[in-house]
């Protein structure tokens, strides 16, 4: 399919299929991932194409994650879907106590090549829990890697990398982007090894930092800043939320000196706070404070049709950027 543009959802589907094709230890499990192909159709076609390797599980997230631990110990490479990231809390004990710590607990005797995929993020007017962004809590769990792609090629490359990773990876899929973002797949075997941050737009006046859905919020804001305010904003895509590429982040921040970080998770103890803390620790002489956070407010996710007042908007980012630029 190289050459043609695909959606982010198709990229995920391709990565799953190619991952299963390349390594027959890879199995797919989760609620409704088999015959239905997942509620978003991310696993469409796999059930027919890989008989005996795609499993509809009972409705129990703890069981899905816990069984994945066992499947990995038993020699397989499970790729589990949690239907929506919000429901990972039903499995949080298996994630934090088991999945993330098994290598450590056993002094390397068992490592767990498990990938957990989960759609997340707002914008689709979903019911409660379905749009929750839990990345800050995941980043607070050592032993886990957390990937959050924002583009089809990256979704493909990162998911392939997640499946190949000898350790557990939480793979966060921005559901709003599933069908709304298009782009090419990485060509052939030239799938990058996942490295750190990526600059998605050049711009020297300040740096907008986002991941997953807010990369696109930042890009739109950068467009508006350039057009209407003559401000050149660079946009940095964090991509890998844990472990953080602190070096790459600091490098891009240092040359621009002004930073705005944008996320859909709630503000307090959000991952934005870590970005701020990291930057001010390494670059306190260089940066022009304050680093501003544009985030969801500290409250439960509101009913879907009212989410616009809750989510960070392009306007919010533009305003924050102007404030930062004017402050110094």
């Amino acid at each position, binding site marked *: 399919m190289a050459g043609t543009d695909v959606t982010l959802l198709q990229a995920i589907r391709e990565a799953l299929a190619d991952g299963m094709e390349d390594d027959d230890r890879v199995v797919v499990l989760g*609620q*409704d991932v*088999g*015959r*239905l*192909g997942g*509620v978003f159709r991310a696993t469409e076609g796999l059930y027919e194409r890989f008989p005996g390797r795609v499993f*509809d599980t*009972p*409705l*129990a997230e*703890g*069981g899905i994650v816990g069984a994945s631990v066992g499947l990995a110990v038993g020699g397989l490479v499970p790729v589990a879907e949690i239907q929506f990231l*919000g*429901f990972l809390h*039903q499995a949080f004990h298996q994630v934090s106590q088991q999945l993330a710590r098994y290598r450590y607990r056993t002094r390397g005797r068992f490592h767990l090549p498990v990938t957990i995929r989960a759609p997340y993020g707002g914008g689709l*007017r979903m*019911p*409660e*829990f*379905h749009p929750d962004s839990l990345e800050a809590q995941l980043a607070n769990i050592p032993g886990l890697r957390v990937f959050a792609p924002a583009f089809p090629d990256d979704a493909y490359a990162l998911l392939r990398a997640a499946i190949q990773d000898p350790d557990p990876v939480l793979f966060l899929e921005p559901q709003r982007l599933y069908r709304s973002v298009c782009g090419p797949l990485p060509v052939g075997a030239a799938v990058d090894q996942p490295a750190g941050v990526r600059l998605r737009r050049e711009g020297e006046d300040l740096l907008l930092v986002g991941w997953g859905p807010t990369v696109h919020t930042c890009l739109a804001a950068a467009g508006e800043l350039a057009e209407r305010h003559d401000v050149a904003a660079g946009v940095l895509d964090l991509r890998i939320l844990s472990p953080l590429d602190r070096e790459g982040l600091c490098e891009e921040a240092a040359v621009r000196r002004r930073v705005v970080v944008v996320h859909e998770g*709630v*503000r*307090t103890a959000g991952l934005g706070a870590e970005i701020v803390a990291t930057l001010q620790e390494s670059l306190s002489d260089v940066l022009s404070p304050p680093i501003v956070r544009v*985030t*969801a*407010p*500290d*409250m*439960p996710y*509101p*009913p*879907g*049709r*009212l989410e*616009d*007042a*809750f989510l960070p908007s392009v306007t919010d980012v533009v305003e924050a950027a102007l404030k930062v630029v004017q402050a110094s």
Partner: protein
Amino acid sequence: MSDLDRRTTGGEDEPVRFLTQDGQLIRPDLPRPPDDVVREGLRLMLLSRALDEKCTILHRQGRLGLYAPVHGQEAAVVGSHLAIDPAVDWLVPASREQPAMLRHGWTLDRLLASLLGRIDAARIPDDVRMLPRQQAIAAQLPHAAGIAWATSIQGGRAVTLAYCGDGATSEGDFHEACNLAGVMEVPLVLVVINNQYAISTPVSRQTRARRLSDRALGYGFPGVTVDGNDLFAMYEVTRQAVVRARDGQGPTLIEAMTYRVGFHNTSDNPSLYRHPSEPAEAEERDPITRLVAYAVWAGLLDAAAVDAQRAEVRAEVEAALDQALSYDAPRPEQIFRHITGGARDNQPDG
């Protein structure tokens, strides 16, 4: 309960059933609900069906978000709810028990307001002893156990009637709630609406248990499987369970065997995972048809009266919809309220 079981079924494996599909009592000695209860039940079932139809249309028109229909499951929901007293008892719904919520006192306009996002108008009134719909599957069950436990600590008379789906029985929450309810011997009646599917997952992939009611033994209380398309059986079995609960004899698990005739919700496409003949066959066991047949046979209503009632409930839905639409459309600032109480109920940070 096992007495009842034997009295009403051929073999141990058959669900409790009182009515044939033609609306005849299987045996004349079986109890039937009082006539006014039958009438109320039929009316609620028709109303529920009309509501499903309307909401599906509204969704197609883009005027209403996700909707999960009750179609096919009406007798299971209505029959069980008819056995409790909304003035005393608690209702803990899962998410598609619309007629139970209505009978419990949440008026149709408020229910519609909730589907239309009129969040403040949709608030459950203070005197309605009911929890809201639950989006996290099975999470309501420990709450139900807790409410019932509170009743028993306080020495009250209330029974808690809780619902969940077949899929929900796989969650840890189901287990922890049932086990706690058993240990504390709380007045809980748990109705598992086994509609054969959790989204696309058939119950055969959900569990290897022959019957979900077999779970009850492992919690030390009675479990019984009932024909969920039979209003009479649902009513009588639930009624007995409510009596037991009120008497301090602890919980009962009731598995209602029924079928989700429609889609999981308005964003689902069942043709991807089940043959269209399956719902078509299920339609032949339609619970409304069965109850209408009884009602006509028993002389409670004639066919014309049933038609009139169909029209009446449709008009009721239309009127309630107008009412719901007349409530204030939600304003953004409303979402910042009710995070915590009292003086702290302010704009959040961020």
